[in-house]
């Protein structure tokens, strides 16, 4: 894409996000989104970031991480820590407070950057030993890492320990949540269609053959893992500062990681639009089932578990398989009735859902 068009799209995205931000957060006069729905949409945005970032490592590289919530926690705590303890100082560079004025933009950017760096670093530390090994071990190590992180956070008094990080400021807004979600989608899509993505695909299909072809498997796997972790860390920073609810390690445990996995498996492992679809579905569904939940407490999670098992047995490729939903694909499938086979270059012009 030429630089001019790139700039055009970036400007367009920022303007669109700013308009939607106004609509969701404050409204235009009487035109205002119900705060309850706005909250669900925000949650969906964060879940999209999580799901798409996990797609990079679980879907594209074919490795299996079940500790995504751990990286989310690292990023969340690092980002929130920065805002809480240094937010005012950072904001004063440009004027304003962490909550408003130009300073708040700087605080949010700094918070996201710190979150991404911390989570990426954690990804590097976990990835290097475990990605040298094959298959199931990564699953166990990431799971163990998630638990270690949880225990460590519980033992740091500066971030509240077991009572949670209560000093969190609700500085996140629609703009930042969907800005990060868009960034994640663009990053993962660009990786998927680049040399890097082809190397990951080769590793997924046959690691030994990929190695024989001269692909440095460990290096690629670690790189994908670090990027995936960093993106999850940003989602954590957004999540931690979205609600006045305290960040609590109990909410970022194994179960949260599994939730993200169910999202991408439901959507179709390896498909970015599938991940978006899965994340949205699994954010809206629990809300729709709220009354059901009150009548039969706990049954929703049982149904999730059953869904996961049945999905694996009868449709392991999920909703989308490895396909991407794109405008070109939609046009083709509406024009002729036959099953639309994904064209070779379909991934290249895949639009974002």
């Amino acid at each position, binding site marked *: 894409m030429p630089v001019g068009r790139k700039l055009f799209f970036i400007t367009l995205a920022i303007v669109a996000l700013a308009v939607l931000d106004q609509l969701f957060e404050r409204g235009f006069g009487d035109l205002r989104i119900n705060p309850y729905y706005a909250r669900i949409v925000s949650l969906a945005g964060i879940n999209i970031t999580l799901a798409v970032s996990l797609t990079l490592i679980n879907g594209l590289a*074919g490795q299996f991480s079940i500790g995504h919530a751990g990286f989310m926690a690292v990023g969340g705590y690092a980002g929130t820590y920065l805002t809480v303890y240094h937010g005012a100082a950072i904001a004063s560079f440009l004027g304003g407070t962490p909550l408003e004025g130009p300073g708040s933009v700087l605080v949010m950017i700094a918070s996201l950057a710190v979150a991404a760096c911390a989570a990426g670093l954690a990804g590097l530390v976990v990835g290097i030993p475990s990605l040298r090994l094959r298959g199931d071990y990564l699953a166990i190590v990431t799971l163990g890492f998630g*638990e270690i992180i949880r225990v460590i956070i519980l033992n740091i008094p500066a971030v509240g320990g077991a009572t949670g990080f209560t000093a969190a400021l609700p500085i996140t807004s629609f703009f930042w949540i969907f800005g990060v979600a868009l960034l994640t989608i663009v990053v993962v899509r660009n990786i998927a269609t680049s040399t890097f993505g082809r190397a990951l695909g080769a590793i997924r299909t046959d690691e030994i053959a990929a190695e024989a072809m001269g692909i440095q498997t460990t290096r690629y796997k670690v790189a994908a893992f670090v990027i995936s972790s960093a993106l999850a860390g940003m989602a954590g920073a957004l999540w931690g500062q979205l609600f006045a609810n305290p960040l609590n390690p109990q909410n970022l445990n194994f179960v949260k990681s*599994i939730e993200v996995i169910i999202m991408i*498996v439901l959507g179709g492992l390896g498909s970015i639009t599938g991940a978006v679809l899965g994340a949205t579905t699994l954010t809206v569904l629990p809300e729709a089932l709220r009354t059901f939940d009150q009548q039969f407490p*706990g049954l929703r999670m*049982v149904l999730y578990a059953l869904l996961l*098992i049945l999905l*694996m047995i009868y449709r392991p490729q999920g909703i989308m398989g490895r396909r991407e939903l794109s405008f070109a694909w939609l046009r083709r499938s509406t024009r002729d009735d036959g099953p639309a086979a994904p064209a070779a270059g379909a991934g290249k012009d895949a639009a974002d859902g």
Partner: protein
Amino acid sequence: METLLQQIINGLSLGAIYALIALGYTMVYGVLRLINFAHGDVYMLGAFSGYYLAHALGLDGNPSVLGAIVVTIGAMAFCAIVGMLIERFAYKPVRHHPRLTALITAIGVSLLLEYGGQVVFGATPRFFPQMIESRTYALGGVQITNQNLLIILVAVVVMFGLEFIVHRTRIGKAMRATSYNLQVAKLMGINTDRVIAFTFALGSALAAAGGVLVALAIPRIDPLMGLMTGLKAFVAAVLGGIGSIPGAMVGGVLIGLMETGLSATAYSTYRDAVAFGVLILILVVRPAGIFGSTAVEKV
């Protein structure tokens, strides 16, 4: 010195429980190359089925050794059946799918048992009836309860029993053949489906025994009790060398010793992290584990 010995005794009995569960992980992994995530939850089911059995038989009022044995065997039989059902209805359909699919299925089964347990048994902890009168023996300043002694004893007996089954019986030979190469074992006329079902039954029965034994010593049981214990037992299996029976035993005891050792120090809050720290370390230093052999991967 006495505190050290005391910690070792405590660690041994905790480790024996990890070892009992780790044996199930190791056997299933050996045969199917599958991490049976649901195994820790079968251990939970063992404790709960023991609880209900004890109540149904009216054994909760009068402690007796015979009653304890009946309850343990009942729970083992129940879990053996559950284990076979899980294999038949969840794992068998995905056996020829990629391993990732099987792994996700296993996670699904684990979640199903945990949340299903919360719905059926209720999320609040139950208290296991005291089936054996608690006695404490003092050996030169070191104290050991009869429950802990029982746990260690059962674990040792089970390990020798397993070694016998795997190395001296016909079905054990079939298990080793299946573990070596499933396809070829099938060609040699071994009913691999039956071998796999037997492996699951055996492993699940051991987990159930572990569940009941733990409940006898620490009566508080809840539907999520298998999550952490199961994960640590899996770490024990990897530490000892996955696929190796003595390895699972040694790994379990080592993890138990490390945990109780850490509990005695100022870092006791890090107790839950130690097993996973060890796991990462072992994967860096010796991925095959203590007793494992590095298999050459064929293309």
